């Protein structure tokens, strides 16, 4: 009798196999779905990080653009003069102009390749003096004293390597040109990246990947009207509408396309009014 009780009947085995198949299939489906969900969420986070990192990088520089500060624009790129440090002009002591420089972001200043000076006239317009300049410390406080111009705490007295920049008491800023461009990625072949180029230095790939829909539009006129058409008069550009379509590093499991995160932000130039 013991020997006869060891096995299962064919019916029992078949029932067991069917039940196990159903349970296994369900479990596998749950695991696969869960895995795909995690993969998709991970891809979405990756895409969002690209968009957000790009926004944080660009906003700080683009907000300070003044009138006359836009050099070139296209759907996939912008080139602007970015203020690095502000100050007040004193008099010329050939071959330099002495100035009172305000406190500045030292990290930004140290990494900048200064390409010129912009001084503010009575009408609120900036006048640009282009060309590489050098800034050195000065001890000629008496030069600024003649026009009652002070150095405030945290600021410094400097000599700008250009004479006759403007009348004493004029505000100015030192600038570098910066180009932002959506182009082909070097780090991720076949994908698009945001590139930044300061002055004539080599362009740096700062964030990738992006979808091909990432682009610039232009905010025109006092009402900051968005436009896709590149304006003939660059001074009419008073800000940018930046469409940052971040893409995921990889194609999520079970999908054929990269995950994207579409974020559109407006940057109004604060010194172009």
């Amino acid at each position, binding site marked *: *009798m*013991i020997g006869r*009780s060891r096995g299962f009947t064919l019916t029992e085995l078949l029932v067991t196999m069917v039940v196990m198949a159903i349970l296994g299939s369900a*479990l596998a489906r749950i*695991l696969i779905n*869960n*895995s795909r969900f*995690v993969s998709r*969420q*991970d891809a979405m*986070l990756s895409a*969002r*990080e690209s968009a*957000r990192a790009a926004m*944080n990088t660009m906003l*700080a520089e683009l*907000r*300070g653009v*003044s*009138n006359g500060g836009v050099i070139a624009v296209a759907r996939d790129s912008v080139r602007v003069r970015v*203020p*690095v*440090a*502000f100050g*007040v002009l004193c008099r010329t002591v050939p071959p330099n102009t002495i100035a*009172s420089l*305000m*406190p*500045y*972001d*030292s990290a*930004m200043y140290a990494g900048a390749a200064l390409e010129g000076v912009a001084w*503010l006239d*009575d*009408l*609120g*317009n*900036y006048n640009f003096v282009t060309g590489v300049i050098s800034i050195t410390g000065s001890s000629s406080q008496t030069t600024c004293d003649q*026009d*009652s*111009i*002070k150095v*405030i*705490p*945290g600021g410094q007295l400097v000599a700008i390597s250009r004479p006759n920049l403007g009348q004493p*008491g004029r*505000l100015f800023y030192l600038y570098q040109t910066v180009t932002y461009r959506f182009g082909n990625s070097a780090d991720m072949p076949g994908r698009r990246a945001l590139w930044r180029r300061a002055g004539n230095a080599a362009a740096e790939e700062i964030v990738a990947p992006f979808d091909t829909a990432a682009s610039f539009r232009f905010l025109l006129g006092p009402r900051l009207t968005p436009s896709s058409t590149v304006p003939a008069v660059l001074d009419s550009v008073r800000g940018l509408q930046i469409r940052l379509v971040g893409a995921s590093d990889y194609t999520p499991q079970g999908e054929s396309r990269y995950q994207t995160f579409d974020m559109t932000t407006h940057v109004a130039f*604060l*010194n*172009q*009014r």
Partner: protein
Amino acid sequence: MTLRRAANERGVALPVTIFVVTLLTITLAASFARIGAERSIAVGTSDAVNALQVAQSGLQRYLGSRTSRPPHGDSVRYNVTGGYADVRAWIVQRPADTTADQMYVVRSTGYAIVPTAGATPQGVRTVAQFGYWQTTSGRLRRVGAFTAANGIRALNPGGGVRIQGVDQCAVDPNIPGVRGSSGSSLNFGSYSGSPGVVVSGSGDHVADTTGVNWAAMTGGGFVPDYNGMQTGVWDWGSHLVRGNATLSNAWGTGMLVVTGDLTTSGSYAYWYGVVLVGGQIIFNSSHTHFNGIVMSGLAEQLTGTPPPRGDIGGVGSRQYHIDYWSCYVRNTLTRMTGFVPVRNAYVDNWASY
């Protein structure tokens, strides 16, 4: 019959359950960790934005609330929604001419505070704005109750024309009734003051003696209370009209700046305060009363070419009165005393340390 349970027949339910639960736990933990990191990045970005808003809020409150000229290094803390802002103002340029405007730079550091996270700021951001402490009363020179850089000619009959440099408020010294450029002729009408009439110098010379910087005023350096002329309001506000303007059957107060010509028409046209006109004033109203001071032809500062000379009088039944009221002038200029931000001089990369 006895059924025996073999040692190797215990089943795999428990190990399989433990395996699945462990797998799910690891997956979920990884997801939560990733989401947590993402959330902290988002919160950090949000705190930075909040700090910027707090800094800007503090800056605007400071610029808008000063009623007397702040000392060098003035420091104020504002508690605003979402945190607090430390604002400091330094004098950058203090002209030797004590009546001239002083240039300041006002710096505001915003600290974003999240109450549930304690007193430690979650975000810090610093912005700054250059501005002038405007003392218009010092700059605007009262060289006449009616100063006509473009010249003025009184027509016959001049019975209704009366221009007085005698202070009707009886507070300040009397000034000339009319200060006109060479070529002005005032043979008709009534003029009084100290003296009643002064006619000399070119138009641009007369325009320069007013102390008004017309280029700055019309080029964006003057931020008015009203863009356009707001009549019937007794608030001593400032009004900027670009182009020509007409004051007809209406009255107003404060500083009226018209870049083109100003025409008075209708049965009455009254203004109390200061009237600055780039072109000429065309007197057409039955009763034109300017109580304060009036200047015309100021656009000559920009072009060097005087606007057309103005005419006054010519119709005996009409009244053209320009009377110097120092108290109305003072009310107007006092209203304009305060910080005036320098256009396009906002700083977003000020050191935060």
